[in-house]
């Protein structure tokens, strides 16, 4: 009986492994191709590198139209890091208020948060664009950064609400008896205990802002201020017909930050998806 089970498990593992190879083949093929000289890339399907070269990476790092890859990366961080900070601060505030404090219309506020999670951003897109245009913010990162300080993304509010609800109430009750007001309860008890939620929210906020091609394209206009997502299109226009290898190299480099996050924070990602049940 036990032997039969082992055989079954082995068979299933083999099946799942084949699926995994199939799924990741394009990714691995991309990485491998990025080290091939131009002539070797066309219709090459194997993963063997016959002539190893770093030429693609050198050209990719030089960038397009006078802006280097490094500058694109710096631009991206200038946009993404403030957004992450704003999201974490404002959303953890909301999470704390809804999970722990009492105020009128609380359940109504919670319903609104759930609704904003499902509402397509497109319905707010045009008025926001007009608003930021009147403020003279077009061409800057402000339209992308400022809203994040006002907890506009329902998903992160929901994530913090759910997490803080799971923290034992006795802890903050004890602190209250010891004379803490709600503000110090938050900073001394809730925030330090919510580190896993901060990490999960931080990763997702980073990833979504990093990948948010649509908003970046609308608001960022000067090529020297382009982010990675926008720069990739510049690369596409410059190299697609002539230099496949450079395209591969740029793609690979642009995915490195995501892959690093994925490998180091995998546990938080997987748990974040499983507990809040949302997109990735």
């Amino acid at each position: 009986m036990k032997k039969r089970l082992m055989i079954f498990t082995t068979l299933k593992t083999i099946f799942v492994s084949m699926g995994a190879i199939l799924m990741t083949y394009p990714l691995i093929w991309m990485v491998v191709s990025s080290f091939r000289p131009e002539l070797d890339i066309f219709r090459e399907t194997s993963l063997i590198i016959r002539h190893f070269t770093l030429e693609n990476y050198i050209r990719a790092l030089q960038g397009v139209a006078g802006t280097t890859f490094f500058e694109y990366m710096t631009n991206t961080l200038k946009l993404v890091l403030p957004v992450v900070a704003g999201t974490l601060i404002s959303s953890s505030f909301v999470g704390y208020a809804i999970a722990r404090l009492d105020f009128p219309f609380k359940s109504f506020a919670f319903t609104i948060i759930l609704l904003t999670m499902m509402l397509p951003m497109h319905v707010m897109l045009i008025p926001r664009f007009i608003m930021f245009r009147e403020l003279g913010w077009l061409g800057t990162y402000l339209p992308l950064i400022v809203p994040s300080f006002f907890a506009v993304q329902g998903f992160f509010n929901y994530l913090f609400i759910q997490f803080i609800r799971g923290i034992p109430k006795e802890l903050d009750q004890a602190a209250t008896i010891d004379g803490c007001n709600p503000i110090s309860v938050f900073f001394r008890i809730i925030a330090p205990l919510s580190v896993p939620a901060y990490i999960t929210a931080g990763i997702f906020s980073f990833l979504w802002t990093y990948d948010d091609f649509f908003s970046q394209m609308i608001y960022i206009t000067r090529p020297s201020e382009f982010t990675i997502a926008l720069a990739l299109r510049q690369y596409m226009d410059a190299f697609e017909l002539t230099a496949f290898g450079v395209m591969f190299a740029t793609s690979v480099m642009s995915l490195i930050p995501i892959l690093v996050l994925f490998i180091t924070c995998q546990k938080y990602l997987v748990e974040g998806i499983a507990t809040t049940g949302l997109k990735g």
Partner: protein
Amino acid sequence: MKQLGLFKRRWRRKMSQINLNSRQSKTWTSYKYAILFMSPWIVGLVVFSIYPIFYSLYLAFTNFNLFDQAEFIGIENFVTLIGDRRYLTSLVVTGTFVGIGVPLQLAFALGLAMILYQGVYGLKYFRAIYYLPALLGGSVAIAMLWRLVFGSGGLLNGLLGALGLPESITNISWISNPDFALGTLIVLRVWQFGSPMLIFLAGLKQIPVEMYEAAYIDGVNPFSKFLYITMPMLSPIILFNLIMQIIFAFQSFTPAFIIGGPTGGAVDSLLLYTLYLFIIAFTFFQMGYASAIAWVLVILLGALTLLIFKLSKRIVYYEN
């Protein structure tokens, strides 16, 4: 005398109101911390959500073009929509994309979640590997990779050539051929089944093992176990995944924009709903018309969600 009595009563009522107010202001002090912590959200909600929502509702009934004064034109935008060829094309393209992509994606997600749940060696690693595409899939880099995989000199044609297929097939550029372009986009969608898979996996773990044990003792076959235990127990999560994935898929933009280009691909074969919205708003600057398109999207998604909820009422099983 009577007058005085009335006066007294009024006075008393007034006093009690003041008392009531002071009691309210007492609770107000206990609310003040909550209001403090909620204030960024409240400001954000008003400035970045509520105001824009109503403003775009207003714009939907105007001919605003960003440069001239907005003029109220009634329901003209919505009438135009019905006769707008490209809009109708975008509806068909998006409908096909969502209608085929999402069910396939969920089927893969559920299938793999069940295999992983039943037990494989190295579950942790497989879970991560299968999730990876969902994490990367929305990026510009992956959309670019898709162009390189499905282009005429790409990986797919290389594989087909290696299988010995004639050049008439291996010379096709799958992304610029209107018959296949949407197919490549659907493949990209299905490829990202990782996040619903993780949710299914978490849901499967919630099903009490005793149910399966009881079924095992009664000699129930695996198919019936799936049909009568797994499906009903998992049905709320299937419903949740279905609705969320439909909402996300409906709004997908980047892959179509990169793979097919900013105008909707060959013969508008990749003209997704949001891409058309983008073209109207930011190529033609018809902000009023674009607002109408955005509002129809909200109504469509709302109606679709309600419809799915209604239809699923008899199928979905809630424990309490």
